[in-house]
């Protein structure tokens, strides 16, 4: 039982803190968002130089062999800085598909491009009717000689507009929500038949609606087993949720810091408003919600690599529930305790609130996971 970081992990954390401190002040972030793609390619190259983009990949594939704890540290820093670059889409999700579903040849080809910053990936899962059910896939994959033809529409593909390659789920057979019959495909984003409509998201990030119309891919485009891709998707998404939990904790921590700072400086009725007990207790309730979330983000990090899919899923659901509930409380109260200034676009707390709110809508909100966990009869409580 040990919550300490290793020496290397501490160094990583320090360098991340420095990076966010130097390069991600609120005004700097605004400038990055003005770029055509909505984020900074220049910073992306810096992440590559720092080794962040190759972090979770095996050394044999051109990475640096980091694990879930390293990803947690990066994502928490991303949460603290409200980082705009597509780390989650490219390294966590895209990288996850390659690590768990890509053969050695593919990994040797693609991982170095991720690590050096030249390749952006995006994962297309959501469809108009799927909500968060990973098995609900209507995009079709038809056999075409040794390859496949893909037809369908994917929505809210995070960084789908910037991506050089897309990873999409498509149905080879079976009904709309069957667990069997799902394939995962790695597709060149410039392939004929793909059209993308990029847009900003509520929290200032990017996403795209992607249409696939008769998109031809080779046999080597399949990640994992054709027709049995769902366990791969679930595994990658579970790792992704653990990473999002860490990001949310970073953002919540900043909201709490900003709020406590505000309570200490804002004066009304001739005194600091932090001297009022009702506000003190609210700030403590926020701290409790934050610490409970932090605990569950650590738990999710520990369980993200769990091979037993049932245990992993239950743990990840439990974490996402806690993050969703804590995030909503901390975010809403951060705005409330700031009063009017918290409502303004020019002040940063609202941007953190928006990011944490949107994290709840990715890969299942708190209620979705609560229902799922309850149905499975699953208690994550080990005795």
């Amino acid at each position, binding site marked *: *039982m040990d919550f300490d970081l290793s020496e290397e992990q501490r160094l990583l954390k320090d360098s991340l803190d420095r990076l966010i401190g130097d390069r991600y002040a609120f005004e700097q972030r605004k400038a990055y968002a003005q770029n055509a793609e909505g984020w900074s390619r220049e910073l992306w190259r810096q992440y590559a130089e720092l080794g962040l983009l190759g972090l979770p990949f095996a050394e044999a594939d051109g990475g640096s062999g980091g694990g879930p704890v390293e990803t947690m540290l990066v994502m928490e820093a991303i949460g603290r800085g409200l980082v705009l670059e597509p780390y989650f889409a490219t390294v966590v999700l895209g990288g996850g598909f390659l690590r768990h579903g890509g053969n050695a040849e593919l990994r040797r080809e693609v991982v170095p491009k991720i690590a050096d910053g030249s390749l952006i990936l995006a994962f297309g899962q959501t469809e108009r009717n799927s909500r968060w059910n990973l098995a609900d896939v209507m995009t079709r994959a038809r056999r075409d000689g040794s390859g496949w033809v893909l037809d369908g529409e994917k929505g809210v593909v995070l960084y789908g507009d910037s991506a050089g390659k897309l990873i999409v789920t498509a149905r080879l057979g079976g009904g709309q929500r069957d667990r069997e019959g799902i394939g995962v495909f790695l597709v060149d984003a410039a392939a004929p038949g793909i059209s993308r409509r990029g847009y900003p998201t509520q929290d200032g990030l990017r996403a795209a609606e992607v249409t696939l119309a008769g998109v031809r891919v080779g046999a080597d485009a399949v990640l994992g087993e054709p027709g049995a891709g769902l366990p791969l998707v679930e595994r990658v998404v579970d790792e992704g949720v653990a990473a999002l939990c860490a990001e949310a904790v970073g953002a919540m921590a900043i909201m709490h810091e900003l709020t406590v700072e505000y309570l200490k400086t804002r004066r009304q009725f001739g005194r600091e408003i932090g001297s009022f007990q009702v506000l003190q207790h609210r700030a403590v309730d926020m*701290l409790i919600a934050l610490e409970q979330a932090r605990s569950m983000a650590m738990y999710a990090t520990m369980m993200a690599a769990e091979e037993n899919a049932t245990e992993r899923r239950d743990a990840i659901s439990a974490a996402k529930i806690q993050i969703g509930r804590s995030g909503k409380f901390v975010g809403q109260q951060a705005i409330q305790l700031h009063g009017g200034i918290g409502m303004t676009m020019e002040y940063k707390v609202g941007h953190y609130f928006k990011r944490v709110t949107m994290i709840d809508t990715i890969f299942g909100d708190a209620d979705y996971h609560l229902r799922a966990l309850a149905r499975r009869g699953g208690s994550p409580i080990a005795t």
Partner: protein
Amino acid sequence: MDLRFTPEELAFRDEVRTFFHENLPESIRTKLVEGKKLAKDDIVTWQRILNKKGWAVANWPVEWGGTGWTPVQQYIFQEELQLTPAPQPLGFGVTMVGPVMIAFGSETQKKHFLPRIANLEDWWCQGFSEPGSGSDLASLRTAAKRDGDHYIVNGQKTWTTLAQHADWIFCLVRTDPQAKKQEGISFLLIDMKTPGITVRPIITIEGGHEVNEVFFDDVNVPVENLVGQENKGWDYAKYLLGRERTGIARVGLSKERIRRIKELAALERDGERPLIEDERFREKLAAVEVELKALEMTQLRVVAAERHRTDNRPDPASSILKIKGSEIQQATTELLMEVVGPYALPYQPEREDDDRWNEPPIGPEWAGPIAPTYFNWRKTTIYGGTNEIQKNIVAKAILGL
């Protein structure tokens, strides 16, 4: 970072678990599972079994009979007690007055009292709260006036848990009425048999007798029963209250309750199916489980941080554990109320110190203690410093507000 127990820690857990299962009398375990009251003898019997094994005062320094376990081992031991479930060693002696004597008491006090605490020869109770001094404890007024080699104590203590069994009481008393309120308080050990002491039961809302009022009317206390220095009692009390950093959340107890909720909700039918299959009920239960899992991880973070601590000051994080732990404990009692449904209603008091209750139960045999436990458990957000006081502590000590 590795949040799993090491193989050594797991082996230790198995050793503790096996010992508990082999040595705890089944009648005691059953009472705890069913939410019934323990008799004094149950608690004494179990603590003596633990003491024979060398585990009654696990948290003390080795020279006074402690185990020298790591914080994680201490945690595992507590957790296993709650999961079994087995009675805790009597806290007033083992976690409160014992450690205070070890830190501040005289050699004579230590040599005489500590072995008797370990073997529960002396049942201790706590004389802190007074009718006018609850959350504002330092305003206490029970007075001890020096008279030669004695103090003469006059006043009243209240909420004194299990004083009806007690041989001794440790009291905060005012020895300097002129000083600032925290600076005129002393820590006195008082024999409950001393003339002038009266114990009067307070019956709590569920009908039980756990707490008492204790009256002191010209009670003579020898000066050698003063702990440490006169007028330093407030420091010792803070030491006592702050030492209990972990275990306060009672995660193991809530886990055991959730196990019980699932067991009973599978027995109880709701229409065509057991209650446990009701989706809404399952979601409520799962929500509590998630909170509890998060609390467990928070608690382990505090336990793991213990080994980096160099001081003995209270960890304000323990306030968070207390707040969240008590809320979750109360939530489990609410879920049990939902499980029992209409048979929460019949009032079926237990007989104190008598498990030969011959009347047949009304309704399901397990229903009797559920509503009383729900009522009684409202205390958890009040005792040990109300949750509101805990929030004041966190606001000041952690947030700097």
